[in-house]
């Protein structure tokens, strides 16, 4: 569903990604883990078009998308719940969700009616958002904003969803909730690429994982395989090795 081949990207003259290749099959939950500054977020941004890749290819559903504007890639079926959540703070919760489905909705009138089913589905997943649907998104707590960011990405019924650091800056109880949601999305068969700082939690839910270090992939495998790989644990997943 999502295939990335030999992706190079960076900011200005500094190259952050030096040849990243990965694949996410339909319905799979793939985790991308690694230390801070490894280039995980840049990988996400290069896939979704926020950073223009210098070299390499990205395929969504077999279609090459590298070099396109982010909005065009989004219209082709990629949803990206970005690092730091990036909800539209001045708009209401419901407006945020409606904008998530922007490409599928009429632009002037009748967009509420057309999005009713998808809204219902997201509210079903996050009852809390329904209670606050008229509140402006900026007044939500960090955890609530994360739920909103995920809900907003789901509104588009994406072919592939990227989720960048959903646990960032959240309390442990809330992180628990976020991962409950991720498990539920997995059960629903949503194709998901998850970047996570807390590697242990990511490996618990993932079908497959890539380990990233200094701009490229250094190890890959199922969570079980990675757990067997002591050197990977030691070198790249300090957090995991202390817990496992």
């Amino acid at each position, binding site marked *: 569903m999502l295939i990335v081949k030999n992706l190079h990207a960076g900011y200005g003259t500094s190259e952050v990604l030096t040849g990243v290749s990965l694949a996410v099959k339909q319905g799979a939950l793939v985790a991308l883990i690694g230390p801070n500054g490894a280039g995980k977020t840049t990988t996400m941004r290069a896939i*979704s*078009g*926020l950073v223009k890749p210098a070299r390499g290819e990205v395929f969504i559903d077999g279609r090459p998308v590298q070099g396109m*504007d*982010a*909005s*065009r890639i*989004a*219209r082709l079926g990629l*949803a*990206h719940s*970005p690092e730091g959540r*990036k*909800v*539209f*703070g*001045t*708009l209401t919760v419901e*407006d945020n969700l*409606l*904008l*998530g489905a*922007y*490409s599928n*909705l*009429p*632009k*002037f*009138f009748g*967009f509420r009616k057309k999005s009713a089913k998808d809204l219902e589905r997201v509210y079903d997943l996050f009852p809390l958002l329904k209670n606050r649907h008229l509140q402006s998104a900026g007044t939500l707590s960090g955890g609530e904003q994360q739920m909103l960011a995920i809900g*907003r990405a789901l509104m*588009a019924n994406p072919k592939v969803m990227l989720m960048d650091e959903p646990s960032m800056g959240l309390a442990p109880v809330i992180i628990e909730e976020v991962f409950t949601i991720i498990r539920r999305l997995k059960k629903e068969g949503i194709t998901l690429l998850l970047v996570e700082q807390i590697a242990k939690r990511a490996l618990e839910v993932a079908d497959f994982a890539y380990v990233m270090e200094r701009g490229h992939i250094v190890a890959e495998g199922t969570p079980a395989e990675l757990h067997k790989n002591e050197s990977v644990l030691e070198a790249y997943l300090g957090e995991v090795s202390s817990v496992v």
Partner: protein
Amino acid sequence: MDQIMVFQMMVSGAFMGLVYALVAYGFQLTYATGKSINFGQGELVMVSAFICLSLTNLGLPYGIMVLLGLLCGALLGLFVERSAVRLALEQKSEGWILLTIILGLLFFSVSENIWGRDDRPFPTPISSDAFQVFGISVTPVEISVAIGVFFIMGLIELFKRQTLLGKAFEAVSTDRDAAELMGISANRTVMLSYAISGVVAAMAGVLISPITTVGPTMASALVLKAFSVAVVAGLDSGFGVVAVGIFLGILESLTSYYIGSGWREVPGLTLLILALALRPTGIFGKAVIRKV
């Protein structure tokens, strides 16, 4: 008698202030989405007014002339965006400042050559015969300015709040990257904001022309004051411009009454300097915390 005169000055000043507010609102629209403004906005006001004048001379009825004039405003706005602003923004440069000024100068010379340098009266079916309200004389033309300003601003605000495209406009203003991730094209939204800003400029031209007459220099002072209003109110605050615009209009007319008409440009510029020195985000603006 003297008191009535002062009130009279204040009322006419307030009507003028509404026009400043309208042009300032046009600045806000493009600043919100593209973080850029058209420094040649005054020339858009002027060119649209000239086009409207020519359309009227062709014998078109007033209503159709206004609609066509607004359409021309939109096209001029799009032209500015495409030929100046986007070139600079694509290279992440501040070159749009100079490019829009140059484009304004170009519009200025072209209009001088097409329409001449003279100020010309602008025919309007709305009467300019004053009537008295509590001893203060008000003209229907002035009332039409107020109605026109609130009508167009209200319409645009309604668009921004009630349609999905309008919400997308807000989204791009708040967070361009996040909006792109929703499938909203930031480029197209910036284009749209320049088109709407052009409509606003044309509307300002239609509204003030009967009062100021139409000429190549009709909007050069206007745009400077509108800029002061936009900066003092804050480039991101919707209706703050109305309050500041009216305030400046009143201040100006009182200045020219008490001190002399040669001083009427002073309050606006003083306010601009004070605002830039003391509160660069504007009275109603939000302080911007820039994450690095």
